[in-house]
């Protein structure tokens, strides 16, 4: 993301102009824009014109519009961000108060005005504009019959293809159907890799599976590449890294990202750091349960006691439609930092963020035990 301009007053009001450049920037923008913000961006409007003769025709015009955002939709697969709201600025084509839907487009500037730029939003801008965060890794998590072809970027894990086939089992006296099924499966995975992995920007491709599936598949792929003289695969052979995973389900990516072979090969990415942080939370929960809590109620109580050492929050909580709710979490983050604790905002698109989101979205490791909290029941809504 490119930061074009930034005017923010002391009281937190202000405007920021940004140019999104890649799909991930759309995700950042999605996390920045909240209900009630105003956005000014270039958009296309269909205009009905009536000629002197009375016949009407419609044409499309490109115009700058300013809308107050009411609904925000993000399609994670296509990375399209779509905002809908009422027009709040005079415009030759669109009446004041009329609804319009703006698609945020790559490489086009948009400016965002907020009544309050809080610390979480400001940090999001810093993160989005930090080029070192752009580390693309592809991962193929598989077991016999199942493969997830994923792209792991700084802030997102996207499943680009999921291959789920039934491979006939070996049968007494006959393994040919099994072996044929396996070949077909490998071929489908191979094609998915070729289609979805951009070898120019991808630093590393992780092949992960239990047993020998990864080895077998890698062998198959390289054989195929030399037979078909596929330069892309041959030239990038060294980018493949074979890692053990307990299954082909997507959540096994957690194990893969924590594997020493992966951590040593790549600089610490956000995804890996999050895996580690969540693992640490569970480790403390096991060994010292009175130092690990989750759920807003418990975490707020722990914060009151200035006990939080590390706060884990899922970013979906800051996308809340309710201003109050967002504020609660922003305040929590600020307060933990004021008390010298660290906060870690998880991307809900990464596997560990997905898990944290399921775990009420907020968790904390404490500096000192608070056994009294253990006796308190969890919030009722945290059960939902």
């Amino acid at each position, binding site marked *: 993301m490119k930061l074009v301009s930034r005017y923010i007053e002391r009281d937190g009001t202000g405007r920021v102009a940004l140019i999104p450049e890649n799909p991930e920037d759309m995700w950042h923008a999605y996390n920045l824009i909240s*209900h009630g913000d105003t956005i000014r961006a270039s958009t296309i409007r269909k205009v009905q014109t009536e000629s002197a003769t009375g016949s009407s025709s419609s044409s499309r015009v490109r115009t700058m519009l300013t809308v107050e955002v009411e*609904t*925000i*939709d993000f*399609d994670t*697969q296509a990375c399209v961000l*779509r905002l*809908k709201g009422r027009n709040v600025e005079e415009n030759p084509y669109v009446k004041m108060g009329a609804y319009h839907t703006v698609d945020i487009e790559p490489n086009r500037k948009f400016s965002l005005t907020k009544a309050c730029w809080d610390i979480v939003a400001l940090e999001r801008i810093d993160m989005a504009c930090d080029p070192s965060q752009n580390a693309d890794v592809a991962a193929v998590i598989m077991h016999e019959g199942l493969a997830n072809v994923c792209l792991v970027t700084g802030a997102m894990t996207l*499943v*680009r*293809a*999921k*291959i*789920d086939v*039934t491979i*006939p*089992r*070996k*049968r*007494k*006296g*006959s*393994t040919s159907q*099994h*072996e044929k099924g396996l070949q077909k499966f490998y071929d*489908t995975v191979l094609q998915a890799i070729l289609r979805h992995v951009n070898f120019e920007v991808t630093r590393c491709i992780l092949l992960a599976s*239990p*047993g*020998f599936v990864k080895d*077998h598949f890698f062998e198959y792929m390289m054989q195929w590449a030399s037979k078909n003289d596929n330069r892309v695969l041959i030239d990038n052979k060294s980018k493949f890294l074979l890692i053990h995973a*307990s*299954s082909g*389900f*997507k*959540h096994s990516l957690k*194990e893969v990202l924590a594997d020493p072979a992966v951590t040593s090969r790549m600089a610490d990415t956000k995804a890996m750091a999050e895996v580690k942080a969540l693992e640490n939370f*569970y*480790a403390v*929960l*096991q060994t010292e*349960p009175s130092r690990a809590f*989750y759920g807003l109620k418990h975490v707020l109580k722990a914060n009151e006691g200035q006990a939080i050492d590390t706060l884990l929050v899922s970013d*979906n909580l800051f*996308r*809340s*439609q309710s201003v109050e709710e967002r504020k609660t979490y922003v305040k929590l983050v600020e307060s933990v930092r004021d008390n010298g604790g660290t906060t870690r905002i998880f991307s*809900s*698109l990464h596997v560990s963020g*997905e*898990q*944290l*989101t*399921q*775990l*009420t979205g907020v968790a904390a490791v404490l500096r000192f035990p608070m056994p009294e909290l*253990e006796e308190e*029941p*969890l919030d009722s809504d*945290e*059960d939902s």
Partner: protein
Amino acid sequence: MARHRNIRTMNYDEEYDGYDDVYGHSVEDDYASSPSMQHFLYDRSQEHQMSAYMQSDIPEEDELVSDESKSGNDVGVPSRIPPLGELEQAQLYSCLDLLRDRMGDALSEQAGIDAILACNFDAEKALDQLLKTSVASTLSKSTKSIIKPKPAPSIQVEKIRGSEVRDGKTPVKVVSAKKVVATGFSLPPTGTDASSSADRQPAKQESAVEETSRQLGCLQTPGATPRSTSPADREATPSATPKSQSRTRENRVDVASEYVKERSGTKALLNLVVVGHVDAGKSTLMGHMLFRLGQVSSKQMHKYEQESKKLGKQSFMYAWVLDETGEERSRGITMDVAQSQFETETKSITLLDAPGHRDFIPNMIFGAAQADVALLVVDATTGEFETGFESGGQTREHALLVRSLGVSQLGVVVNKLDMVGWSRDRFNEIVARLGAFLKQAGYKEQDVFYVPVSGLTGENLTALDEPKLTEWYSGPTLLQAIDKFRPPERPLNRPVRLVISDIFKSVGGSSGCCLAGRLESGMMQTGDKLLIMPLNEIIQIKNIAINEVSKGSCFAGDQVVLTVSGADLSDVSLGSVLCDPSQPIKVTSRIEARIVIFNIDIPITKGYPVVIHYQSLSEAATISKLIAQIHKSTGEVVRKRPRCLTKQTSGLVEIEISRPICMELYKDYRELGRFMIRANGTTIAAGLVTGIL
């Protein structure tokens, strides 16, 4: 009891909202986002539909509901019930379930309730009355009950849905309204009541007798009031029960007498799984056994010997009998369960040779889930027994898994005794250490035996020759010991259930498709029409093969290969279930379960991602709610809504499965109500389905 009614009036659209995956087919590019992603896709704008990106739902729920109510089944229409106390209401529903069991869906709820109230909660009387007075009206009202071999109307409706789904590749919401209702709830749905919780616990020994009597309960109830839910039994009723009701075949025979006719005089069937740590010698042992018993010809054995020698793997020549794929042979490791067949003096054994490597435990679970009894093979070599037995080894994990999957009789094979000079001390040491552990794991002492052997030399497999062994051992050979296993009673009279564990093209020219699996309950005959779930299509059985021999019928407990026709089976996936169309299996993506947690490092919390292993299926799932921690043996609630569940505890939890799968309650079908939970490559818990949500 409230849920009893809720289900009938439930809006399924809401119930399954958020589920947006397409199941049971191979997807090349499945762009569905993960469930948690859906959350925030929608969370800011509930009303807004991203129709441009998200596939829309099929707006057919209404149609379905109206169709169901037309069929006189009162779905969606709450019945009139006079004000009743809690106890009476419970009585009412249990009576109603009983009636429904006997009469099937033909019974309208209102009629049932009226009759029960009139007869003062006496189910037998109510049944009598209903049968006498309302047979005619029931028949004319309910189109379902007079359909002959054709599928019932509701099935047709859903069949259409099924095909639309496939053509349009539209996400479907599985509607299992009738299924849930049809089987009824004879127990309070919470599953926390103390009386039933005891037998829900896998670690606690439920005696085979108990299980047996439960199954026999169907068969042996005296008098003219058969208690079975099976259509065949209904036929035996001399009453005026509509004869053709929910029939899967034209001339339905009595299962019990058919079984006697077909199987009397034959050896009792036993499914035997062989488990143990990697390289304990399982395949070698059983391969050698098969060779000794003449199941493998000398010519074939010679071929294995020559070929394995070429690969420098001659020590695996016997294992090659079972390890048939190129991968398995070149790596010297079993990867998937091999099935074979041999006979002892009184038993006909279906052998399931499981892989020992920890990465293939999903396959081992699949094998164990089909087994009646198990052999646990341990390597007696110095240091090797210890490796397998210590934490991280598979000896313990396998023994626990097998027990949790309902196997109570275990034979321990102390193998490779040739490596330790047939040492009696070593044998005794192993017996002592394993004995203590197995007792803890829930095996009864009298249900466990120990046999010293060498799989490689063949000693004490079928004959005892080695002088160094006969010096101190005079017990049975392995073959004799296997013969002593008691075969379990088979649920012959329950509605048909067969979990599909393999799908392949039939060989030999015919264009059919073959489905393999173990028949869990009931019986099948060629020509039968069965429902395949969750696909919801009717298929017809063209051929039944057991051990590659065509048979006209098969019974609960049999490992069968069916050639079928009638539906496009490219969408059938492992874990699909063939069932009686009138009493289909339930389909769900959310269950309530009682879990027993193993020795785990990381506590289980809400939101914990796991893999559940159920029969031939493994599926990603999330522990979505911790309802209670319960006492391991009494089943009492220790703590409600715990923050986490730690090692060696038990809990009541809710589990969200990533796609709808076929499941049964443990109280209805023991074998189909059990599952295992694994995470990060270790087994973390065993579970029993207590509720289908």
